[in-house]
């Protein structure tokens, strides 16, 4: 089971646009809300009203400062969740077969009934995509809303992950990254989508679109004054302006 399927029929995943993400955290709580009542055990919270509240979240939004060499400093908001890697190291380390990668769509899932809670999969993941539920002792992770995307109780248009459905800026895209014709593949190609930590060799399915270049010195020429107002006075300016009507 924890052998990787090799090639999957499809490679469903997310494309996250860092040029558009405003860091509103909508995807974080939409994910929490859906998965608290969805696949597997609820996402428990420890000490929710106390000094160190800590619960399971399957999607977190970080925020980074970037200081380019010349341009103004930037803030980049950065959602982080399971990347559903092709060579998912979290799957192969699992001793019980609870972690697996689905053959039909490449989604990496945890079969919670088989999870012994050893945590080794979380160690193996370079991306911090897995969080252990402290109440139930099982590993939780993004399911790519496997209980939404095929759900026949949902209207067709809602069959997408909760984070994608809720994202106000449309910074999250869902689709088959195996299919070069899919909208997400096209987007990745057009916007130079990239892998996180490629050197880790996990071959993530999810891709990130980089922030577009910002604050570039504007090449547009400046506005030329109509005439030398000092010389002509206001009346001259007025004649010139209104003469244009």
């Amino acid at each position, binding site marked *: 089971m*924890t052998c990787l399927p090799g090639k999957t029929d499809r490679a469903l995943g997310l494309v996250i646009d860092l040029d558009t993400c405003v860091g509103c955290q909508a995807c974080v709580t939409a994910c929490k809300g859906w998965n608290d009542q969805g696949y597997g055990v609820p996402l428990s919270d420890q000490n929710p009203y106390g000094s160190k509240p800590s619960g399971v979240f399957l999607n977190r939004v970080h925020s980074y*400062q970037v200081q380019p*060499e010349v341009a103004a400093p930037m803030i980049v908001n950065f959602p982080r969740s399971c990347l559903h890697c092709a060579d998912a190291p979290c799957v192969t380390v699992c001793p019980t*077969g609870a972690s697996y990668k689905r053959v039909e769509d490449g989604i990496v899932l945890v079969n919670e009934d088989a999870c012994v809670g050893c945590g*080794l999969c*979380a*160690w193996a993941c*370079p991306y911090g995509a897995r969080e252990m539920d402290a109440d139930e002792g099982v590993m939780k992770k993004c399911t790519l809303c496997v209980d939404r995307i095929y759900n026949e109780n949902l209207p067709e248009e809602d069959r997408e992950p909760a984070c994608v459905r809720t994202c106000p800026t449309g910074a999250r895209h869902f689709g088959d990254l195996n299919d070069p014709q899919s909208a997400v593949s096209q987007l990745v190609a057009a916007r130079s989508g990239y892998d996180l930590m490629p050197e880790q060799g996990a071959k993530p399915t999810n891709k990130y679109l980089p922030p577009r270049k910002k604050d570039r010195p504007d090449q547009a020429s400046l506005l030329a004054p109509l005439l030398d107002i000092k010389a002509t006075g206001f009346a001259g300016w007025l004649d010139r302006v209104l003469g244009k009507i």
Partner: protein
Amino acid sequence: MNPAPSVIIFTVLSGMGFGYLALLGTVHDYSGVAALAHWFMGFFLATAGLVASAFHLGNPSRAWRAFTQWRSSWLSREAWFAVLALLVLAPVALSAWLGLGLPRALGWLGAALAFATVAATGMIYAQIRAVPRWHHWNVPVLFLVFAVTGGCLLAGLRGPAIAALVVLGAGMVLHWRIGDGAFARAGSTMGTATGLGGLGQTSVFEPAHTAGNYLLHEMIYVVCRRHVPKLRALALILAVALPLLAMLFLPGRYGPYVAVPLHLLGALAQRWLFFAQAEHVVGLYYGKR
């Protein structure tokens, strides 16, 4: 990585136990009550370690499932090797105690399985690419050298123990030296973790959450790092230097009585460092290593 006591105790005790069992199954030939005592000690250490490891599990009742994934998982393989080693060595122990005269070859098979168990334990860590310090062949080798050393000390094999201690000392130093540059060699930075490195110098602006979470607790353990040089020296002195002196200079059978507890303490210190110093690349997302 969080130096969880359960895992430290498990790896140290079971490593020592399996090393000892391997020697009991091969080079030693205790018999009668002596055999019972020695084999009991070996089995006790090995199984106590395994029991301790169960405390690390969220759902220990499902531990039997860990035997199912031997094809891909080193943890599963470790479980198999451990159980097989114990099963194979049990009749050997019985034979030694009761003088049943089982073939010695069974002892050698058990020893091989015991060392395979220790190697598998090492591989559990060495396979984790996301922890560059661990992701190296020296880790299972060091675990094996610890097992052999512990076994030799427990078995009171003076000459081999002295040799093993020397090798262990060198191994520990080598392990640290290789490990210290491993993160940099792996090439993961906040820049690659976020993909923003090409845009400019990247740093954390705001944390993603208010307080700790599983990742921070389990994999982004940054406590006590500044005491590392002292702890390394302590580990080396306790695990290697003092036991060596004891074995070299204390008369005959007294050496192990002094060396074993010191070595055990040193091994625990080394293992604490093994975890506490291991930096997981996920820390890059938090600006912590």
